[in-house]
């Protein structure tokens, strides 16, 4: 793909493996020093820069709780609890964790849908971190326009500030046709209106905002309108899920980064003519599954991204 960032090249440029400096960002914050301000106490990005402070958060995605196909994943109830145990056992905790959609696997049965959300929520409540953020995927929200999701996890789209960064959670899934919609786009414009053009902005969404592979449902129908709204802001980074693999892409100056699933892997468009779930390999269990650590190195003007493998189920 034309604007795709070559991971190997990024690793080479970064100078060491495992950590990818994915985006130059936050020039307005650099050199302003750091503070000990908490998320709640952080001044709004773009208005006061004294809040800049390095931190990291985790992106977990596409957990598809309730998925059942033993040829693709014979231990579908193992990965998520194992990851939670791994996070809770770590010496250093993230500032927060964000689940970027498809928390549950879809079902037509409303009772089963709610049961899956109940089970997922109970697991997520076991995370010993200060803050957990959620957003829906189409599996969670498309069948009922997000009705059940909202009962368990709250609003479908929202924003929050954390240590000098403005985070925007966009819903491009509760519409069955993958539309963000004019109302939400108007909200986005309003939400960003108070920010300086160089304010650090992180957009969290489920589907890619550009036409990654529309034939595979890897697109947002009106994603171009969203990008038009974001384009005047010089320091925007998008983290998304949906495609069950790591991918890096640029639309103009906006960087997009997808992460892996914790349930099943999908092929790359370049290597497969058809989008089919990659079968489980007993010789390499959990291959292609994982989550992401994101270092918001605000004072150094970049993010670092580290892809983490899914732990074995017996953690």
């Amino acid at each position, binding site marked *: 793909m034309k604007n795709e960032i070559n991971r190997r090249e990024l690793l080479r440029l970064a100078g060491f493996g495992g950590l990818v400096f994915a985006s130059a960002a936050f020039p307005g914050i650099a050199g302003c020093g750091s503070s000990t301000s908490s998320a709640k106490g952080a001044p709004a990005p773009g208005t006061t820069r004294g809040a800049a402070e390095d931190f990291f958060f985790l992106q977990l995605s596409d957990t598809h709780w309730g998925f059942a196909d033993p040829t693709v994943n014979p231990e579908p109830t193992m990965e998520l609890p194992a990851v939670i145990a791994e996070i809770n056992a770590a010496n250093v905790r993230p500032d927060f964790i964000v689940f970027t959609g498809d928390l549950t*696997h*879809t*079902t*037509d049965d409303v009772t089963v849908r709610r049961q899956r959300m109940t089970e997922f929520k109970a697991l997520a409540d076991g995370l010993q971190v200060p803050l957990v953020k959620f957003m829906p995927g*189409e599996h969670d929200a*498309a*069948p009922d326009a997000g009705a059940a999701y909202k009962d368990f996890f709250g609003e479908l789209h929202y924003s929050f500030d954390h240590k000098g960064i403005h985070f925007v959670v966009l819903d491009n899934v509760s519409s*069955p*046709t*993958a539309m963000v919609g004019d109302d939400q786009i108007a909200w986005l414009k309003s939400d960003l209106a108070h920010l300086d053009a160089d304010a650090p902005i992180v957009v969290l969404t489920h589907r890619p905002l550009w*036409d990654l592979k*529309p*034939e*595979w*449902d890897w*697109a947002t*129908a009106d994603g171009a309108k969203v990008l038009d709204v974001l384009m005047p802001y010089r320091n925007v980074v998008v983290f998304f899920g949906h495609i069950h693999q790591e991918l890096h892409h640029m639309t103009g100056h906006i960087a997009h980064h997808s992460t892996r699933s914790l349930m099943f892997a999908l092929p790359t468009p370049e290597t497969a003519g*058809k*989008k*089919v779930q990659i079968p489980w390999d007993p010789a390499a269990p959990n291959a292609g599954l994982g989550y992401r650590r994101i270092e918001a190195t605000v004072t150094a003007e970049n993010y670092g991204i580290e892809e983490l493998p899914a732990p074995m189920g017996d953690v």
Partner: protein
Amino acid sequence: MRRGAVTALLCLTSLAACGSESAARHTDGVDDPNATVISVVAQRWQYTPGEITLKKGVPIVFEITSADVHHGFNLPELGVRADAIPGQKTRLPFTPEKTGTFTFRCDYFCGDGHEDMQGVLTVE
């Protein structure tokens, strides 16, 4: 997955029925009553037919419906889409202008097998 196949038999006869050469090149969106109709039925999680073959430059009309729930019929590479709605036939005039093999798929989330609901259009 059960799939049928259809070949649109668009020959000189159907071109003649269009009345003129210019009519045969009409742009998408013009519903020519003389064009060959390709009926497509969407049903979880497949299309019937699942494989369609057309001739480049020869206009047809897709007539799309659903046998169960709301689906979509989307050919993103060719800029063609329509809703497939139960109890309703959606007419979608189309003239393929480039040859190749293209995927059409459901773009209206319809459940567990939604992501696998697709078919193949070949333009010769």
